[in-house]
């Protein structure tokens, strides 16, 4: 799979709510090759601060129009600069990068999509693709949570015919009160819905809980993981995560989010070797 450097043109920039923005870019080569779950490394301007590109996953891909969208939350300098981009401006991209989600077999059994915060982004395109090939009778559910209602995308953004959405907020300001994974476990305990596969994206602490449930219940889960990264193409080796090595549990080995991921199965990560520094949301100190 060829990786491309492409100068993209900004088509649309919309503040959806609070600090969450939707950016549509015209980037025909990358849009034409992109798959759900993959990402681009983006640079908004030349110069030394910020120095590095930032990774963003595709939230929507319009291959025939040569466009794609990203959803992002302004957390620091890079994303603040990005939020000032106007239609017609350009941005430098490297992509598409990473492995992407493995789509389920058409017309297969119930599926759960679990999104925490801005982690909803790659799941939107994935859900769209899955829905397009389903027959309509399957039980597809999105579990979508955020810290508070102000960080939750408007309902019409995530509601699709044939998709049942469960909302949660940590503070109870919208939907279920509590963590998204807690709500997911509650729904599982009711017993009416049992997914054959899980797709999830969100903070590492959330992903850990998803992985734990999936492993305990022998359910396949594809987790979209994030990390600080400098290059996105497997050269800097900065985006390492401890890998499980079932054949030799004591062995120390790392996988790299940019080239081995960003989509990982629940069992491929050695969760008990992740340091607390890694759970801090990936923002840069110079932000």
């Amino acid at each position, binding site marked *: 799979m*060829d*990786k*491309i*450097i492409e100068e993209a043109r900004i088509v649309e920039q919309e503040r959806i709510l609070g600090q969450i923005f939707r950016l549509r870019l015209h980037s025909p080569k990358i849009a034409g090759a992109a798959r759900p779950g993959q990402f681009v490394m983006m*640079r908004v301007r030349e110069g*030394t*601060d*910020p*120095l*590095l*590109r930032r990774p963003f996953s595709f939230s929507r891909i319009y291959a025939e129009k040569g466009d794609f969208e990203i959803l992002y939350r302004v957390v620091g300098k890079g994303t603040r600069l990005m939020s000032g981009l106007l239609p017609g401006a350009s941005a*430098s991209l*490297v992509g598409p990068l990473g492995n992407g989600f493995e789509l389920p077999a058409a017309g297969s059994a119930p599926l759960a999509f679990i999104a925490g915060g801005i982690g909803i982004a790659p799941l939107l395109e994935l859900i769209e693709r899955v829905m397009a090939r389903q027959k309509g009778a399957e039980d597809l559910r999105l579990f979508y949570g955020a810290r508070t209602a102000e960080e939750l995308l408007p309902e019409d953004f995530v509601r699709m015919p044939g998709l049942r959405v469960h909302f949660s907020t940590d503070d109870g300001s919208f939907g279920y009160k509590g963590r998204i994974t807690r709500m997911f476990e509650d729904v599982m305990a009711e017993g009416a819905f049992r997914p054959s596969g899980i797709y999830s994206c969100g903070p590492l602490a959330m992903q850990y809980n998803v992985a734990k449930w999936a492993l305990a219940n022998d359910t396949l889960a594809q987790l979209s993981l994030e*990390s*600080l*990264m*400098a*290059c996105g*193409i*497997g*050269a*800097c*080796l*900065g*985006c*390492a*995560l*401890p890998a499980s090595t079932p054949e030799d549990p004591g*062995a*120390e*080995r*790392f996988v790299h989010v940019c080239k081995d991921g960003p989509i990982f199965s629940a069992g491929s990560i050695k969760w008990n*070797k*992740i*340091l*607390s*520094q*890694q759970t*801090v949301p990936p923002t*840069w*100190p*110079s932000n």
Partner: protein
Amino acid sequence: MEQNPVTANGSPDLAVELGPLRLKNPVMSASGTFGYGEEYSNFVDLRRLGAVVVKGISLEPRAGNPPPRIVETPGGMMNAIGLENVGVEQFLSLKLPYLRELSVPVIVNIFGNTVDEYGRLAARLDGTPGIAAIEINVSCPNVKKGGMVFGTDPAMTGAVVRAVRAKTSLPVITKLTPNVTSISEVAKAAEGAGSDIISCINTLAAMAVDIFSRRPRLANVFGGLSGPAVKPVALRCVYEVTRAVKCPVIGLGGITSATDALEFLLVGASAVQVGTANFTNPAVTVEIVEGIKRFMEVEGIGDIKSYIGSLDTSCLFPFAEDSCSLIESEMS
């Protein structure tokens, strides 16, 4: 200053000679920022580079440090990758063939935990087709001497260079750390022990912390600072080293453009390596080759060798005549 005329066919000559090492141009990748070359094949024609310096290789594969391993800082980044690599055997069987096929000069960066390990690595690489030179990374701790970094001590640096020199007929490059009181002293020790070429600088020892979690940003606590922020330090080091040793010097540290590369050549480096900039712009190495060529065309420089080390540090007083006449008038 004498200007060499542009060569007969009108194309400036970018070829450089670093002792026994001849390169078609002075631009190479820096170790640890370019993988094993293939990672960048989508973005650059690797054959256009002077050489590819690959990720540091050890005798055995290494997993590297636990994450977080990198952090961005103003104008730079810090890394504590921990020399993750596939080990020399896998490098030779899986990684080298791709570069050998392209016939791009490959410089293999090596590191060990003991002097003996350096020697064994050099012996293993010696005589392998497709390797143009060995670059010794002396910036790792000597496990036998309580973890003291080889490159911070002239005597230990000399010992490593001698061990490598004894086991190979390939050109030997010694890559120096700037984290020393006198980089010239270490450079002299490396040259004296038989290093054909010196490259400098490796990353600067650095640190970043998070005020909220009250933890270091890197799991390793310390990391190596690189990127544009370190360029002035690197230039000074290259300037000092080129004046301390007779052997050729490769300059690196924060180079992101042809201008940066030319600055290093101007102060005396015979070639340059491009590191962190590859992360931001994966095509930057070839863009720098093109930029140097354009500069030479515009400036009428036919041979890059005439530009190397042509920095003029003599003191000129453009208005000296006036001041002289002023003094004369006061005296009369």
